[in-house]
């Protein structure tokens, strides 16, 4: 087959692909415009914002999640709130591995009973509680 014919076939295929991709993209774009109109934009770590005033001059704080996983560092349910907290409370560094070595500990726990148990284990008092079952605990010592 002459090269010119092959080129034309490819041109047709590519234009068809562009149109097909356009059909895939169009509803997403309309949805994005709707979100902008209704101000449904993304929020990151807003539930931790209430803890900021309590951690003004704190360099390090512990972070404990009640959720358990075989690989916590790759578990979305654990890592998403943890990293969002890091982002929103920065420059406070949140220690996930050795949480009990810091005076302040952020506890993320949807289960009330488990939260009490962790508080007891850390021998800490509740300083603040923000939305979505997030507590700031004070152990009173480093």
């Amino acid at each position: 087959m002459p090269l010119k014919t092959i080129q034309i076939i490819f041109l047709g295929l590519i234009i068809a692909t562009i149109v097909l991709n356009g059909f895939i993209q169009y509803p997403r774009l309309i949805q994005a415009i709707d979100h902008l109109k209704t101000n449904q934009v993304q929020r990151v770590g807003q539930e931790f914002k209430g803890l900021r005033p309590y951690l003004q001059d704190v360099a390090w704080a512990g972070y404990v999640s009640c959720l358990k996983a075989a690989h916590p560092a790759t578990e979305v349910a654990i890592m998403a709130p943890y990293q969002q907290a890091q982002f929103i409370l920065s420059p406070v560094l949140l220690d996930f591995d050795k949480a009990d070595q810091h005076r302040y500990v952020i506890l993320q726990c949807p289960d009330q009973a488990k939260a009490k148990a962790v508080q007891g284990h850390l021998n800490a008092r509740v300083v603040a509680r923000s939305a979505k079952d997030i507590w700031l605990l004070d152990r009173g010592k480093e």
Partner: protein
Amino acid sequence: MSIVIAFLISMVTGYFILRIIRPSALRGVDVFLIPGIGLGVSAQIVFYSLLIFNQLVPFWIIAAHLICLTGVFVYSRAVRQQTIEIRLSKQDGCVVLLLLLALVIGSIVGLNKPYGDWDAWGFWNYHANFIFRAGTRWLDVFQFSTWWAHHPWMLPCMVLWGWGLNGAESVLVPIAISLIFCLSCLGLLVCSLKERGWFGWALVAGLFLLSLPIFMAHATSQYADIVLAYFILAISILIVELFKNPSTDKALMLGLFLGLAACTKDNGIVAVIIFGCLLLSSLRRNKAWIKHGRALIYGFMSILASVLLMKGIESFNTGNHGYDVSWASLFDWHRWVLIGKFTWQMVMDSSWGLLWSLSFLVLFIFRRQIKEEEGLGLILRFVGIYIISYLFMYAGTVLELKWLLSVSYYRLVFLIAPTLVWVMFSALGRANK
């Protein structure tokens, strides 16, 4: 307004540096190399000012930018240049329209996620955010206890430049950086094909890349991926140009872009090593460009120091290691089957808009056209080696493989997607002859 001024300063600096390196008439491709040079230099200034003052001092980074801008302006006056004649043709008008379309789509998608995707707020912007707020404690950012990725931080430094001049954090800065590199990537692709006389294919290539569902979605994620994808495409174009007509300015520019790619993220360092090996191996067939090898090394060395410093500072300040590899895992057949499954899923995924199927077909049918142009062959070998080297990294990783593939595989191939589109359309364009 101050954010616009920050980017303007970077662009003007980039423009004068480009005019110093390449005093000949300005081409379309050059216009889209300016953002890479300008923002790259701004990031270098922020990085070195962090090292010198041990914290982010907006006054000094602004002063350093103004000194740099004055210096390159005065020096560029001293270099004999061809005057620029701006004459926009109908073809240029079509390119501008395409870029405007991309700008509109990119702005809508980008403004919908002002904090970007996960790694944007979890890593790239988090680094910028921490350094901006932490004062002299900025080095503590590397003590992020559960993080194992330790990329160079050129992107956070670019964000810091915008925030520094603005005097406050703003989500608009990372969004704008993503858009600038996204548009520059498209501009580079279209202009390089257009300048070779394949305007029709150039326009179709631009529309094809823009139409890929993953392209805009990921380009506006505020990750360093779009920045590196841009640098890899620029390097590919510069290599082909260097092989065709070797000159000192092209070699110097290529060296500079290789350095900037290495400074973007770890994948960039791997890409630069592969490019370096392929350039050396090409000497057997094409010795012409080596006459300008010194310029290439000078360009690369100008950025290399910051890459080494960034990596060194991170290793010194962090306790955990980078990508650990288990040699035993490399021979685990199940892991290779899982990688194969993910590869198949990606080839079939509608997000890629038939990119893989079409490019395989084009590259197979037009292999003779690719072989005829040595530079194109080298770029294609780069794409192959790059993917294979990461497949081995995946097979050997000590991290949970399924998770790693699900979060990073598509990003790895995103980096080479614009380059692959460029090679594919170059092959189609060459068939015209």
